Every structure is written in structure tokens, then in C-alpha cells.
């Protein structure tokens, strides 16, 4: 009887257990989805609807938030608006209904572009450097390897913002303030320690025999690394890249401190969208909604890599 009980603990859970577990997962997912749903709904509300209390669940959706996000507008007299030719599009029409005319595009897309360049650039650099460093620590006898690894880890032991002032002063000195290069270097420096540690774990798992086999098959160590180690480290590289990208994409404090103009990223820009008579919440929500898309896409693309796993089957342990 005893043996049946012990076997029971490792077999398929009962349908009831499965149903309860499923319900908990769905409930948790719903709770975490509420802020996202809230942001998306706000982005398609009109400004008065967005601040009404109690919050409106049923409302007439409008593109006003997105229009306000992408444009700057000026107030004009009704007479002047009457004298203009017919509106050129939906946004034009919405603006005129509020006695405004579109003056030009807003800074949202340039800021969004800065975010893309800085986040992907720093992720690429951090993962590249991290992979090479992790390979070195994993395969060669590096003098003081343990101390070096601890030093690399120790850069993450205090919140990065603790060194904000020295970095601000250094950046001003070196002319890196408000430059994309400066932000890429900063985010790379923060992410590379994480990348080294994560990737070292993944590369340690890849048996050395593969490289040795490749070297005997006539390849140099660098070629063996490129043709044999890297393809097997893709899972680890994908996971590390997602972590690095999420940090660089979301980073706010340094972006506020070190960028203000041409290199400003989207996070410090979005809250500064001011409408008439205060914060333009639908526009802010619209900016946030679009801002979520790249991370979503990147994660979905790499999800396959993450789930596929490495076919270690060819080496038996």
C-alpha cells in the first residue's frame, strides 16, 4: 500500500487538482492584466471620460488620445477654423471639433526611435561582451577568476542610481550627456554583469567535447566557438537578451537625468505630454500602449527559442 502512495505523488494530478490549479493561474493572469487593460482602455477614451469618477466602463471609443500623442496643436478662433479647407483626416477633424488645428508632429516617434536604438544597441553589446567573457571564464584558467566574477557581480550590489551624480558629472565632462552612445554605454555597463553570470551558467552546461571534436576536425578555437558553441547557447543567449532588453527599455531614472533633448528615450518623454488644462491622460496611455509593443514582439519571437530547449540528446551523461 505504501508503495502505491509514494508512486502516487509523482503521477498525474487528479482532475480536481488540475481544475483548481488552472483557476488560480487564470485568476492571477487576470489580475496582472488589469493595469494593461486599464491603460489600453484609457488610450481610447476622450479626455473627460478618462478622468471621470467612478471610472467609465462603457464609453464611446475615440482616437483622440493617439491623435494628441502624435501631434502638437494650437488653439484657434472658430472663424479661422471655418475659413480652412476641409479637414485632411480623422485627427484633423477631432482637433477642429475642440477648436484646435494641428501644428505639426509631436516628438513621440523620435523618442520612440531613441528608445529602440539605445535598448537594442545596449542589449546587443551586453550580450556579445557577456558571451565572450562567459566563454572565457567557463573554458580557460583565468587568473583570479573567482575574484573577477565576484567583482563583476558586485557592480549590481547597489542600485545603479546611487552613482547617478558621479555618472552625471563624468558624462558632462566627456560630452556623453544626451547622446545615444552615452546611454548605450551606460545600459551595457549595467547589463553586462547580469549577462556574464547568466551566460556562464549556460556555457558551463555545454560539454567541452564538442569544441574539442571541432578542433580535431580541423577548426580553430574561434571557429569551434562560432560553429559549435554559439548554436548550442542560443537558448541562454535569448533568455539573457530578453532580460537585458527589458531593463534598458524600461529604464527611467538615468534617462531623466542624462537625456533631455535629441537622445531622450520614450519613458521620460511620455509623462511630459501635457494637454489643455493638465495631463493628457489618453495621450499618455496611448504612448504607453505603443511603448509596450516592441517588448511583446521580441518576447514572442524569442519564446520559441526559450521553449525549444537544447537537444543535448547526442551526448549521454
Amino acid at each position, binding site marked *: 500500500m505504501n508503495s502505491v502512495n509514494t508512486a502516487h505523488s509523482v503521477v498525474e494530478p487528479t482532475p480536481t487538482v488540475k481544475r483548481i490549479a488552472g483557476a488560480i493561474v487564470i485568476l492571477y493572469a487576470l489580475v496582472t492584466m488589469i493595469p494593461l487593460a486599464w491603460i489600453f482602455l484609457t488610450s481610447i477614451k476622450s479626455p473627460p471620460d478618462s478622468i471621470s469618477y467612478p471610472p467609465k466602463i462603457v464609453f464611446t471609443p475615440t482616437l483622440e488620445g493617439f491623435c494628441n500623442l502624435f501631434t502638437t496643436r494650437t488653439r484657434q478662433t472658430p472663424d479661422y477654423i471655418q475659413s480652412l479647407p476641409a479637414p485632411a483626416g480623422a485627427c484633423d477633424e477631432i482637433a477642429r471639433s475642440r477648436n484646435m488645428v494641428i501644428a505639426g508632429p509631436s516628438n513621440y516617434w523620435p523618442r520612440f526611435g531613441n528608445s529602440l536604438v539605445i535598448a537594442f544597441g545596449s542589449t546587443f553589446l551586453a550580450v556579445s561582451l557577456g558571451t565572450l567573457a562567459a566563454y572565457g571564464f567557463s573554458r580557460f584558467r583565468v587568473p583570479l577568476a573567482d575574484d573577477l566574477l565576484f567583482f563583476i557581480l558586485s557592480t549590481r550590489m547597489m542600485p545603479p542610481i546611487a552613482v547617478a551624480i558621479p555618472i552625471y558629472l563624468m558624462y558632462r565632462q566627456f560630452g556623453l550627456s544626451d547622446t545615444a552612445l552615452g546611454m548605450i554605454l551606460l545600459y551595457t555597463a549595467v547589463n553586462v554583469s547580469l549577462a556574464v553570470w547568466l551566460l556562464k551558467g549556460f556555457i558551463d552546461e555545454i560539454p567541452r567535447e564538442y569544441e574539442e*571534436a571541432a*578542433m*580535431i*576536425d580541423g577548426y*580553430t578555437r574561434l571557429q569551434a566557438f562560432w560553429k559549435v558553441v554559439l548554436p548550442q547557447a542560443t537558448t541562454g543567449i535569448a533568455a539573457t537578451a530578453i532580460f537585458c532588453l527589458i531593463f534598458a527599455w524600461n529604464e527611467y531614472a538615468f534617462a531623466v537625468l542624462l537625456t533631455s533633448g535629441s537622445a531622450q528615450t520614450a519613458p521620460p518623454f511620455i509623462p511630459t505630454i501635457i494637454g489643455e488644462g493638465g495631463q493628457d491622460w489618453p495621450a499618455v496611455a496611448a504612448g504607453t500602449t505603443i511603448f509596450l509593443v516592441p517588448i511583446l514582439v521580441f518576447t514572442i519571437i524569442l519564446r520559441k527559442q526559450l521553449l525549444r530547449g*537544447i537537444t543535448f540528446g*547526442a*551526448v*549521454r*551523461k
Partner: protein
Amino acid sequence: MSEIKIVNLRKQFGDFVAVEDSSFTVEDGEFLALLGPSGCGKTTTLRMIAGLELPTSGKIHLDGEDVTFNRASARDIAFVFQLFALYPHMNVRRNIGFPLLSQGVAKAEIRARVEETAKLLRIDHILDRSVSGLAGGDRQRVALGRAIIRRPKCFLMDEPLGTLDAEFREVMVHELRELHNRVHATTVYVTHDQHEAMAMADKIAVMNHGVIEQFGTPQEVYNRPASMYVADFIGSPPMNFMRFHSGLKRGTRTIVLDGVEVAVPEVGEDVAPGEMALGVRPEHIRFSDRSSIRGAVYGSEYLGTNQIVAVETAVGIVKARVSADRSFRLGEAVGLEFNPAKLAVFDCVSGRAIASSLYAEARHG
């Protein structure tokens, strides 16, 4: 194809000496087995020949060329790993063709040679399969295919059958030897399994604690072991040792074992008095009621064609391989008779075999 010559090769890891002053030559087309227990330095020796490990001192010559410090990729050798190390992100065809790719061989030629190699190994039907789904034997063949496709100067194999189950291992032993007979590549094969070494190798190097105890043909190693270690490691059950205290004179033809005179091959050297051991293989023992070496049956092990009978004597337990026809009672009194031409005498302190006419034969023949 070529000759591998190892001269005074030595490897030290920190304070640990993995390989101590080894020298041997593997002739062109010869199959050498490096045999020994784990940790004896056989794999380290193989890795030094491959260039995966650099020796502390000594020389390695490949085909007359000093390759001691050449990169592995520059040595033109093939290595079959214990765990095969098939590249998991490539299919069978790409795994086998990978060594040719590094040499810049044309695509069409790689294709042709992969197919030719696969036919030789009878794996042409699985060329487009992923290596992760293959059975142990097929993985083994793919690993061999990757080794032979390049027609390297020599093959190095590190216990390639170690992970296969016993039944299949015998099939592969046969296949490997057959493959060797067909391609005649100089081969160094590392194993801890004496049966594999005996069945496949032209020469065997028995290693222990980083030292090569004996280098010779399977027959030499079995019939004329150079040391007690070799005599004990090879053969199952191993050689029996019967201890006695004595000195020996050159030309002596008998020794005294527990008061009984035993005829031995003519001793070829003078030995100062000390602990000695008479070594006799189980198959060189007969039961004879006339013999003065007496004992009582202690146990027996039935093997089908014959049986191993353990006999408790005044000089310890002696195992004899005798016909399976006769059955023995436990405690039954028996007399033991040895085949005098096949006996070896060892110095127990150094473990060294004492020169005798048994060993002189080896030198002449």
C-alpha cells in the same frame, strides 16, 4: 596513414603525475590498445597525442614529424570521444561532413564522400535524421563516420564502447576490428576492458599509475606478463599467486613451495633471498591425486564450457579452470598439478617478473 612515436612523454597536473616517462611506437596500420584502470593516465596519453593536452616534457612524432606542440587541428588525426560528442544542432549528414567543411572541400564532393562513408558503416539510411534521436550503436557509427571520412593519419578512440550495453558492445568490438581490417588506419584505442583490448588490438600497452607496465602483443601480455600488476589485471579470473620466501640462482629449474618442489622454466638470473610469488594461470592447473600440493575445494563457478574451482591450500586460495564434466563437493580434498612450461616467478617487492626461459622465448620469437 602513419606511425606514432612517443618518446619519454610526461604529464604533470600540479603535483599529480598523470603520465610518467612513457615511450612506445605504434607502427603504420597497427591497432594499439591503451589498457588500464581509470586514473592510470591512458586517456591523458591519448589526449596528448591528439593535441588536446600539452605534455610537460617528452616528444610526440607523427609520421616522422615532431608534432608535440602542434595545434590539434593541425595534426590530421581523428578522435572518437567516449560520449561521441555529435554536434546536436546538425543532422547525421552534416555531422559526418563537418571535418571536410573545414578543409574547404567542394559541396558536391562532401556529399559524395559522406554517402560513401555512410555506406561503409551501413548508416546511409539515416543520413537525414537528427542525431538526438539515434540509438547508441548508430551514434557510435556516426562518430566513426566523422572520424574516417577525412582519411586522417591516425584514429584515437577514448573508450568508445564504454557506454554501450554488454550485448551490443560485442557486436561493436567485431565491427570496429572489421573496420580496422578494411581501412588499415593506425589506431590508438583507450579502454579499461581487457576483453575489448584482447579482441581488437595488435598491441596492448598496460598502464598503471601513469607508467606503462608492459607493451606487447595480446599473447605476450597474457602469457608472459612483465609484472604482477599485468598478470593480475589481465585474465579472468586473474593469475594465481602463491607466495614463498627464497633466493634464486641462474639455471635453477625448481622452486620450493610450502615444502613441495615445483618445476619451473629455467631461471635466467640470480635473485637475492626475499618474498617471491609463483604465478600460474587457472587454465594451467590440473587436478591430480598424485600431486603433493594439496587443498580443499572452497567453491566452484560453472561457466558452461568449463568451470572455475577455488581450492584452499596452504599457500592461499588457488583458482583452477577445469572441465565442466566433473562436479566437486565443498571441502573435497584435491591435489594440484601445474603445467611447468607456463609458470612465472615474480619478485613480490618490485612486482617484476624474474627472467626465465619462459620470457627468453618471447625475446627470440
